[in-house]
C-alpha cells in the first residue's frame, strides 16, 4: 500500500503542477485514510463505482478532491487522461468533486458542512430500505466549525445510524475547534482516537471496530504530509500554484 500511496502523491503533484492549481496540503493529509478505506475496508465494485450496493465514501472536505481522484485513478475508475485533465475546461475533475461527472463520487462537496448531513441521509436511506451498506464520511477539523456538523451529530444519534462512520482529518486547520472526540462522544457517538492519522495499521484497526452507535474516528494528521515544503508552510500550500523550482523539490522528496 505504501508504494501506491507514494505514486498517488506523485500523481497529485503532477496534476496540480500541470493545472497550475490545487488544494495540495489538505489532499496530502487525508491520503492514508482514503487508501485504507478503499483498499482494505469498504465493499466497492471498481467495475461499477456508482452502484447503489457499494459502501459510500463522501469527502465532506471536498477541497481535498485531488486525493480522492488519485485513489480512484489508482483503482482504475478514472482514466489517466481524465486524471491529468484535472481542472481543464471540459474535464470531469474539478477542484471540488461533482457527483454528476465523476465515477464513484456520490455527493458533490465543496461548500463545507454539506457532506456530513448528506451522509446522514444516505445512511438513513440505506436503513429505511433494509440495505446493509455502510457510509464513510470524511470531515476536516476546520469544517467542524460549521453548525451543520453538530446538527448532523445529533441527528445521526437520533436516527440510530450504526451504519455511519465519520472520520475527522484533523490537520490543525481550525482556529478554534478543539476536542472533537469529546464533542462527538457527548452527542452519543462511539469515538476512537487515532494519534497518528498516517499510520495505516491503526486507521484500519479503528475502521474495523464494531460499533452500535454512529462511529467517530478522530485522526490526527499533518497538513502537507510527505513533503517538507508543505509541512513547513501548510497554510501557504492550502491552495497553491507550483512553480518549476518547487516542482523539482517536491519530486525529490518522493525519492
Amino acid at each position, binding site marked *: 500500500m505504501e508504494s501506491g500511496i507514494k505514486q498517488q502523491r506523485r500523481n497529485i503533484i503532477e496534476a496540480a503542477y500541470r493545472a497550475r492549481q490545487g488544494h495540495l496540503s489538505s489532499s496530502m493529509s487525508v491520503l492514508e485514510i482514503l487508501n485504507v478505506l478503499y483498499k482494505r475496508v469498504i465493499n466497492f465494485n471498481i467495475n461499477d463505482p456508482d452502484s*447503489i450496493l457499494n459502501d459510500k465514501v463522501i469527502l465532506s472536505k471536498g477541497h481535498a478532491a485531488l486525493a480522492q481522484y488519485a485513489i480512484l485513478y489508482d483503482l482504475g475508475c478514472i482514466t489517466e487522461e481524465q486524471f491529468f485533465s484535472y481542472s481543464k475546461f471540459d474535464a470531469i475533475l474539478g477542484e471540488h468533486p461533482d*457527483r*454528476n461527472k465523476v465515477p464513484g463520487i*456520490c*455527493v*458533490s462537496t*465543496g*461548500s463545507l*458542512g*454539506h457532506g*456530513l*448531513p*448528506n*451522509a*446522514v*441521509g*444516505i*445512511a*438513513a*436511506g*440505506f*436503513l*429505511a*430500505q433494509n*440495505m446493509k451498506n455502510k457510509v464513510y464520511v470524511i470531515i476536516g477539523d476546520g469544517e467542524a466549525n460549521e*453548525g*451543520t456538523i453538530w*446538527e*448532523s451529530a*445529533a*441527528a445521526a444519534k*437520533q*436516527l440510530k445510524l450504526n451504519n455511519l462512520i465519520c472520520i475527522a482529518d484533523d490537520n490543525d486547520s481550525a482556529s478554534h475547534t478543539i476536542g472533537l472526540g469529546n464533542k462527538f462522544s457527548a452527542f452519543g457517538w462511539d469515538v476512537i482516537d487515532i494519534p497518528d492519522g498516517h499510520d495505516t495499521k491503526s486507521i484500519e484497526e479503528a475502521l474495523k471496530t464494531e460499533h452500535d452507535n454512529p462511529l467517530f474516528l478522530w485522526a490526527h494528521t499533518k497538513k502537507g504530509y510527505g513533503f517538507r515544503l508543505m509541512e513547513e508552510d501548510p497554510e501557504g500550500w492550502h491552495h497553491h500554484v507550483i512553480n518549476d523550482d518547487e516542482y523539482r523539490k517536491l519530486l525529490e522528496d518522493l525519492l
Partner: protein
Amino acid sequence: MNMREAFVTATNDIINKDPRVSLILGGISVASFSESIKKYPERVFDAGIMEQTGLGIAAGMAITGMIPVYHTIAPFLAERAYEQLKIDFGYQKLNGNFVSNGASLDYSSFGATHQCPAEISILKQIPGLQIVIPGTANEFDRLYRDNYDNGRPTYYRISRDVNDSDQDVKIGTANVIRKGNLATIIAVGSMLKPVLMATEGLDVTVLYYTTVAPFDNETLFNNCINNRIMICEPYYEGGILYDVIQALNDRSVSIRHFGLPHEFCRHYGTTVENMSFWNRTAGDLRSELEIFIK
C-alpha cells in the same frame, strides 16, 4: 379543508402507499403525522429545528433512491436553508419536495422573522427548481399528488389565503381564465381571488399561474393582445418580471406590478389589515387597473 390540511392528508396517503417516500419535519406539524412517525420511524421523523441539516438529510435520502418531502415554515426552509436547496438539490440534480407553510403574511402577528415575501425571487435563481404556488387546497392536492415523484426538486408554497374556486391546474401550464382586449392580468396563486373581483366587467384577459418555475411563456405570449400587462403576485412584486419580459420576446410592453412592496412588515394584526395598509386590496387593484387601461 385548508391547504395545510390538504398537505397533511396527501402526505400521509403517499407515505402509506409508496415506501420510497420519506417525510422530514422541521419541528412543525409533528402531531399531524404522529401515526406515520410511529408506523415508519425510519423514514418519517421530526429532524427538529435544524433546517439546513434537515434538508441535507433529505438530499442524502434522495441519493439512495427515496423521495423526500421536507416541511417547515417558509423563511426557515427557503431562506435559512437556501444553500441546501441550491447545492444539495439544484446542483446535485436530486429529487425532493419542499412544502413551506406561512407564505408571505400568514404569520402577520409574529413579526418579519416568520414572514416570507422574498422567497420566490431567490428560489427562482436556482436552475431546475420547480416552484408551485397553488391557489386552493384542492389545487395543492392535485399538483402535489401528480408531481411528488417527478424526479425533480419542487417547492410548494402553502398559504392561508385561497381563491373561491378551483381551476383545472397542471404543473408548468398557466390557465386562461378570461379573454379580453384592453390588458392582460397575470394572477399568481391566491391573487386570483382579488383579480377576479377587481376585473369584474372589465374587458381584460386574466391568466392564472400556479407554477412560476418553469414559467409558461407560451400562454402569456399567445394572450398578450395590446401589450399592457399587470402582474399580480402574493409576495414581493417583481418575482416573475424576468420571465414575463423573456416570454414576450423583445415586444415593447407596458408593465404594472401589484404585489407586496419591498418592505418589512412592521405591523402585527391580520393579513387583511396589512394589505389595506399597503393599499393592496381588490378595490385598490380595481382603481389601478382603471387608470392602466384608460
